């Protein structure tokens, strides 16, 4: 059995190694991913984002524990930042997830962001695909936790949880532009602390102000839920909301729309990458420099350069004009 077959048969070591190959963009990773693709698309992908220290890891641990009571197989991908200076990282999310140790139906993987902004690593989506294909019913992605810029999670997840804590009113204000658009569920964690109800009220108000989405036949009313992850309070309600959101997505047709959008952005990104690689192979550095100099000296326009290079790849204007045009 090769690594793909072993992964599909439920071998955790094969899955773990597959994730490494994907993370390192190893030569064989793409072919493997292509083979995994038909087996993916079943898992509900849940993103958990929010400020550092909001309790995301503990919350993820509790969510997974509750899902396990319902006999769901759960994968977790926890992303932490890489140092921009050394490329190293300390990945500490497992510390808060120790209670999940020893459960063969839970798979936790820590990922370093490796220079990507937006809260995820560049390969997170592909890593999730591997977990999905390996038969996990839900895959929970925990983002870096930097706050405002964490929009990538929308493209990777079906259901996005935005986690905040009492006493971060200013924080909510600062985040509202990005955050109101990405949350499917709001969580006010550490709700055993004073100010939880006020935080809920603030969120309600912000939601009320910002609710400008077009009228839908079956709108999703974004729940605002209070939890205390360390005490395990409010968790079953949260998990219920997560599972309900998945049902909502399928029944409203939004799941199909999202899948379409994701497929489109993925194919386009790969195509861009592919074209760039071929272009690089067809132009040497000297010639490239000549082109750039010529553009700077106003001897030729950047549009003409792009067109010439596109022609070289067989992509001139005549190649894309259809017969009859």
């Amino acid at each position, binding site marked *: 059995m090769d690594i793909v077959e*072993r992964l599909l048969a439920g071998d955790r*070591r094969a899955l*773990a*190694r597959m994730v490494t190959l994907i993370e390192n963009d*190893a030569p064989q990773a793409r072919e493997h991913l292509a083979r995994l693709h038909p087996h993916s698309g079943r898992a509900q992908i849940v993103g958990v984002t929010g400020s550092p220290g909001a309790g995301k890891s503990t919350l993820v641990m509790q969510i997974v524990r509750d899902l396990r009571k319902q006999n769901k197989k759960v994968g977790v991908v926890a992303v932490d930042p890489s140092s921009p200076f050394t490329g*190293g990282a300390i990945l500490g999310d497992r510390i808060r997830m120790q209670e999940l*140790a020893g*459960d063969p139906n*839970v798979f936790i*993987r820590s990922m370093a962001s490796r220079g990507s902004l937006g809260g995820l690593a560049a390969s997170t989506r592909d890593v999730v695909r591997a977990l999905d294909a390996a038969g996990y019913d839900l895959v929970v992605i925990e983002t870096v936790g930097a706050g405002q810029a964490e929009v990538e999670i929308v493209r990777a997840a079906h259901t996005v949880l935005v986690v905040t804590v009492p006493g971060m009113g200013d924080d909510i204000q600062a985040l509202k532009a990005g955050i109101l658009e990405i949350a499917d569920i709001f969580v006010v964690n550490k709700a055993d602390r004073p100010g939880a109800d006020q935080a809920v009220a603030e969120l309600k108000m912000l939601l009320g102000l910002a609710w400008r989405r077009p009228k839908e036949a079956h709108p999703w009313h974004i729940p605002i839920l209070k939890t205390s992850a360390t005490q395990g309070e409010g968790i079953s309600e949260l998990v219920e909301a997560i599972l309900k959101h998945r049902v909502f997505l399928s029944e409203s047709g939004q799941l199909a729309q999202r899948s379409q959008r994701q497929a489109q952005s993925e194919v386009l990104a790969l195509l861009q990458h592919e074209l760039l690689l071929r272009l690089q192979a067809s132009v040497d550095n000297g010639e490239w420099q000549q082109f750039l100099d010529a553009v700077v000296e106003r001897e030729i326009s950047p549009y003409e350069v792009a067109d010439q290079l596109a022609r070289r790849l067989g992509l001139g204007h005549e190649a894309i004009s259809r017969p009859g045009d």
Partner: protein
Amino acid sequence: MAEAHKIRVLVAKPGLDGHDRGAKIIARALRDAGMEVIYTGIRQTPQMIVEAAIQEDVDAIMMSILSGAHMAIFPKVMELLREQGVDDVLVMAGGILPDEDIPAIEALGIKGNFGPGTPTEEIIEYVKTHIHPSRLADAPLANTAPAPTPTAQQSEQAAN
């Protein structure tokens, strides 16, 4: 284009003592050397260490132990790794390891055995030069035997 293999190290603190300053210093030094360090925290059982090492697909495991329980814990870790068919991971230890125990620890296949005062540069260099070559090449899997399913004991723990 393939990126260079990024070295991943699990830093674990087995046993019951809670003094993890040494482990944290090592974790930080390895990070500053450009490695990805999975830090598991204190009070790790051999099962937890091996499971984390497998899921995280690390190149190396570093166990820091001060409590004196090393001869109870280390053999178990090595046994579990063997059971799971993991044969390409560098296993190291550090902390308070009496000289007279070192031969027995090394006989288990645990390397390094860094005592107090070891310069972090030495440990970094050791990790870099002792990782299994197949791992640096991102081999699909060094070991071809399928890993056994989790033991009944592990499943039982999970149910608790």
